[in-house]
């Protein structure tokens, strides 16, 4: 065995480079906006704390979902239901978060409840939706795409059916606080931190990566793959529920059309951040950066007064370009190394 040649380890810390990569993309995009800002608007894009807060604020809901979705993608799955689960939880949560001042409350007997009630309802609902996803995938073996597509359609249907399309408004002040000020940002970053640790430093995380890298190997290593998958999807559902709470609190209303297409933004954020759709690879930190890139684009476009018709065209191009740049840098590195 004396002959197995292994080159010395070149990396200082585990996995840093990948994230550094996408961080560079973020910085590059920001700089472009900064330069264009000075040219066209005669003012700085970045030197405006208000704008920076809003940038994160407006993507924090997508960000919360994206964290759950990242874990799902790491197991080699996908979650298309998160946007609809946001709408469903927002609706049902709001119906038990209404203020007694409002004459037409949905459940007049259930107004002015302490804020923990709607919180528990929202999180519980998300958890259940996620568990159904997970159970379908783990126990019946149908593809995650289909299981969560079904949940996507069903949850959206429930959101509409719940009040026959009517929005629900007038939450209690204590509930509205959850979505006010920079609270959504704090929640997003706290969730990110928790799951960053969970994925890297706990067995939960190791199992998640193991299942995504090679489910058979995970099974023969003694991991209960089915149970773990249910956990992962349940957590993704829980986070979608949390996102629903935040979004309802922020808008101070809940509406069946909420969260439309958020699942795609969340998946895009994860993939831009380096999570591999074939499973086994991905980091929360990358997803956070991916989310910020999306937020940066939204703010940047408005700042530069880009015509809305061009915005979408440009957004599509930037998403692709960001991932292409990342891929190329990664290839270049692996060639050099």
């Amino acid at each position: 065995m004396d002959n197995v040649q292994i080159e010395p380890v070149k990396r200082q810390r585990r996995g840093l480079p990948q994230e550094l990569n996408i961080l560079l993309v973020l910085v590059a995009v920001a700089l472009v906006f900064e330069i264009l800002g000075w040219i066209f608007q005669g003012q700085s894009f970045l030197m405006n704390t208000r704008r920076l807060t809003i940038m994160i604020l407006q993507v924090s809901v997508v960000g919360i979902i994206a964290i759950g979705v990242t874990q799902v993608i790491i197991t080699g799955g996908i979650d298309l239901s998160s946007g609809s689960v946001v709408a469903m939880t927002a609706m049902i949560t709001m119906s038990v978060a209404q203020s007694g001042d409002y004459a037409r409350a949905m459940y007049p007997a259930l107004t002015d409840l302490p804020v923990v009630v709607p919180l528990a309802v929202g999180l519980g609902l998300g958890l259940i939706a996620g568990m159904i996803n997970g159970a379908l995938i783990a126990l019946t073996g149908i593809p995650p795409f289909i299981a969560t597509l079904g949940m996507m359609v069903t949850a959206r249907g429930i959101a509409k059916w719940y009040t026959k399309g009517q929005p629900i408004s007038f939450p209690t002040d204590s509930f509205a606080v959850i979505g006010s000020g920079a609270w959504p940002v704090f929640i997003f970053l706290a969730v990110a931190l928790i799951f960053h640790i969970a994925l890297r430093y706990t067995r939960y995380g190791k199992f998640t990566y193991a299942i995504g890298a090679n489910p058979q190997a995970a099974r023969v290593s003694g991991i209960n793959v089915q149970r773990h998958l249910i956990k992962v999807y349940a957590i993704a559902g829980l986070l979608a529920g949390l996102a629903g709470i935040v979004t309802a609190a922020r808008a101070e209303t809940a509406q069946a059309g909420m969260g439309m297409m958020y699942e795609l933004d969340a998946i895009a954020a994860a993939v831009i951040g380096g999570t591999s759709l074939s499973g086994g690879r991905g980091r929360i930190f990358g997803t956070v950066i991916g989310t910020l890139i999306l937020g940066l684009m939204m703010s940047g476009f408005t700042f530069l007064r880009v015509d809305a018709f061009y915005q979408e065209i440009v957004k599509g191009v930037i998403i692709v370009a960001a991932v292409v740049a990342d891929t190329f840098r990664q290839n270049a590195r692996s060639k050099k190394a």
Partner: protein
Amino acid sequence: ETIGVAMSLFDDNYLTVLRQNIQRHAGDLGVTVQMEDAQGDIARQQSQIENFVASGVDGIIVMLVDADSGQAMSRIADRAGVPLVFVNMLPANMDEFPEKQAWVGSDEEQAGELQATEMCKLMGGEGDAVILMGQLGTTGQRGRTAAVERVLQSDECKGINVLDSQSANWMRTPALDLMTNWLTSGMQPHAVFSNNDEMALGAVQALKASGISMDDVIVGGVDATQDALAALEAGDLDVTVYQSAKGQGEGALDTVLKIARGEAFEPRVAVPFELVTPENVAEYKTQN
């Protein structure tokens, strides 16, 4: 002066005309406008308003995604002291506007009411009918459908029997498919109450393809789009409802500029819907 305009949806026939009217008027006044498309998403619209505020616009015009989100939008603008004008859609917080805010628009329920009253008259107050609803849960779908249902419960129209009401998502092809499905299920409606013109035209297409004479069926839409007016002239469509995009667009821009300049302004400007029938269709052909 720069005015931010947050639209609920770009690819909607009527809202496009509204947008163009704002744009044209702004061009005449030499005001810069920046349009944003919320793509039907409340949260996105909220962010767009926040972004406007952060970019330091002089005023904001918003076409709400949903009436109930008015409260949150009002608060954002109010806190930053930026003038805000709601256009077209009636916000839920209508009665408690902060200063520097106003509404210029029309009431969705009125559209449904005009449409249903006229169609009821044409039907002689009896017969079978179907309702084509817009995307479920949107303000337009709710307001117009509710008004139609209310009118049909009135004494004069009680004889009208609603066979079914389904959603065709505001679009022509789904309405075409839906109508065909109804017809093949043996329904023979005498009237089609549609939440907008696009769906009404889809229904017309389906009825014609089934060999039903358009004289036998009363079809009504809302919006008075060019396609609809042409169909009205051809006798395919019987009723549509005109909403003055010009009045709303110009009114909204004028009001927001007044607020921004500190001039006196009217906090509620109602631009009424108008009924369009084959008799008066010529007047509207050059309007939208």
